[in-house]
């Protein structure tokens, strides 16, 4: 490589080393060591913390919660996004206005997703309304069967606009003569929806990529589970709100006996989480690109 090229790249390389590689390497380093309480620094312990992790029931529970949370969130965001896009296209007027309105959640901080639909905000009002309007008993929001779906739907509220936008772009790009050909072949608008529009959306690479991206994102989900663990008073480890990220955070706050903050253990779990995220996202994308992209070329 020419020297000028190296010089031009060097700031970017330096930044990557400082901002990405160094913390990453440190985290991996720490995960392989124990902090010596006598003050002599780090002692190498090998895979001890990884071993600990694999023996910890909280880890498995959080892993399960994360997986379920991810699957449900991706599914509902995608479904909601596609649905809103299809409904938006039915609008004759005010298309742009409603579209912008629907996009607002994308601009808010994710923590808001955990607040907007919480008991102090919308939920209590909704609960009261249901109670007085339909004479139904109050819904117990501290029941995981109730609040877990609300958490998932909050994610969908935040992220479905992304899928909506992608769907709108795909549908707007659908060839006009293709629709006329369909009409000439005898297709009704229902046929066009189910046999042309939906396959065009679900087989598009953009959607495949978004699904992969958001799967990883939901897998690391923190803000909404964090907010809900407050609303439903689940501050201890092993609560149904505890995704892997939230579990790590709680461990930071609840020092285990004797050794202070289990920073090495947390590093081990976060390193494992990162590795799993990377591999899973790659696998999901590959798989989707194979199934859906096989047709798209």
């Amino acid at each position, binding site marked *: 490589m020419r020297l000028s090229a190296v010089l031009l790249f060097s700031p970017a390389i330096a930044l990557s080393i400082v901002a990405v590689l160094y913390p990453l390497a440190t985290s991996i380093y720490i995960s392989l060591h124990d902090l010596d309480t006598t003050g002599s620094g780090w002692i190498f312990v090998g895979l001890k913390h990884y071993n600990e992790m694999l023996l910890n029931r909280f880890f498995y529970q959080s892993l399960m919660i994360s997986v379920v949370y991810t699957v449900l969130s991706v599914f509902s965001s995608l479904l909601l996004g596609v649905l809103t896009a299809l409904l938006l296209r039915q609008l004759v007027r005010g298309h742009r206005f409603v579209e912008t309105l629907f996009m607002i959640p994308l601009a808010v901080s994710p923590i808001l997703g955990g607040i907007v639909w919480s008991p102090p905000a919308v939920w209590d009002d909704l609960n009261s309304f249901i109670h007085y309007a339909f004479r139904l008993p109050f819904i117990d929001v501290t029941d995981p069967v109730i609040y877990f779906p609300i958490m998932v739907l909050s994610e969908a509220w935040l992220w479905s606009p992304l899928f909506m936008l992608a769907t709108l772009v795909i549908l707007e790009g659908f060839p006009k*003569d293709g629709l006329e050909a369909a*009409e000439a072949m005898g297709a*009704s608008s229902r046929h066009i929806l189910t046999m042309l529009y939906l396959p065009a959306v679900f087989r*598009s690479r953009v959607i495949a990529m978004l699904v992969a991206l958001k799967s990883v994102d939901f897998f690391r989900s923190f803000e909404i589970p964090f907010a809900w663990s407050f609303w439903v008073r689940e501050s201890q480890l092993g609560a149904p709100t505890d995704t892997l990220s939230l579990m790590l955070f709680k461990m930071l706050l609840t020092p285990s006996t004797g050794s202070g903050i289990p920073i090495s253990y947390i590093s081990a779990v976060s390193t494992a989480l990162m590795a799993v995220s990377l591999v899973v996202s790659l696998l999901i994308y590959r798989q989707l690109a194979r199934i859906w992209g096989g*047709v798209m070329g």
Partner: protein
Amino acid sequence: MVRIVLDGVSKAFGRTTVLKDVSLDVKDGEFFTILGPSGSGKTTILRLIAGLEKPDRGSIYFDGEEVTNLPAKDRNVSMIFQSLALYPHLTVFENIAFPLKIRKTPENILKKTVKEVASLLRIEHLLNRNVPSLSGGERQRVAIARALVYRPRVFLMDEPLTGLEPSFRQELRQEIKNMQRATGITTVYVTHDQLEAFSLADRVALLHEGVIQDVGEPWQIYEKPGNLWAAKFVGDTPLNLFDGSVSTVGGTVSVFIQELGLHVTIDEAIKTSVNGYVRVAIRPEAFRVVEKDSRVKGVVVSREVLGDRIVYIVDVGGCKITVKTSVDHVIPVGERINIDVDRARIMLFDREGRAV
């Protein structure tokens, strides 16, 4: 199989009139082409027959039954667009099966029918492929397969061969023709390419600026065009045009073409309708170069070899005429030649350009 009638159909888009009082009668099972320059309204006629547009005035009938306001989806026609309009996100199989699925064809019959049509068009091996990976010719066949698979009443094609290689176009042209013969489906085919229009059609309609100029069998359009515009539009070499004066000499009516010094005997009835003057049009191949002495003599000014034909520009007493011959006579530039005219192929038009 259906007879299509357009009765006084007019269509405007905004302030632009696209079709003016178009009447056509496409016979049951006929291969009918509409030939015209771009912007003449050809595609609009197809779209009206398909039901993708509604005429402003006039009516459309399928087998005597009015369909003017029947939606496209209820007409059971199929249309091949210039762009082919295949679905890029569906496989070849799914593309071809699309119209059958709409018709709720049972899965086993659907599979069988798609395979049959695919083998007819020799694209069976492509069924699992995706559309973007196909070549132009393959896409063409897929589009035809999709249009054929549900046995439509009417087959509409909008310049489907545009953009393909010439050698390949001929092959596909033949296939389209064979396909139409085999199925007997009434077909309306739109093109700006004369060769395509003439080689495919049972009958051709010439369209210019939204007005039907002429309708007839290909040879009729070529040899006996209905008007001067039609005569000029068809053919690949420019028409020879002369002024002719009509007179009666010794009981026989004849046209005198001054530039050629030639008298041509005509029917007496023509005389009364033209009022002494006609436009005379002679196709370059209606001239023959002959050995023996003839009335028309000239000098070869230039020569253009078109492969199987040669086009000469010949100076006949100061007037330049175009003569097209086979390659058996290769005449050097500057040579004096004798020219004969095939009198049966002389075309006459009145002042308004109507054939007489």
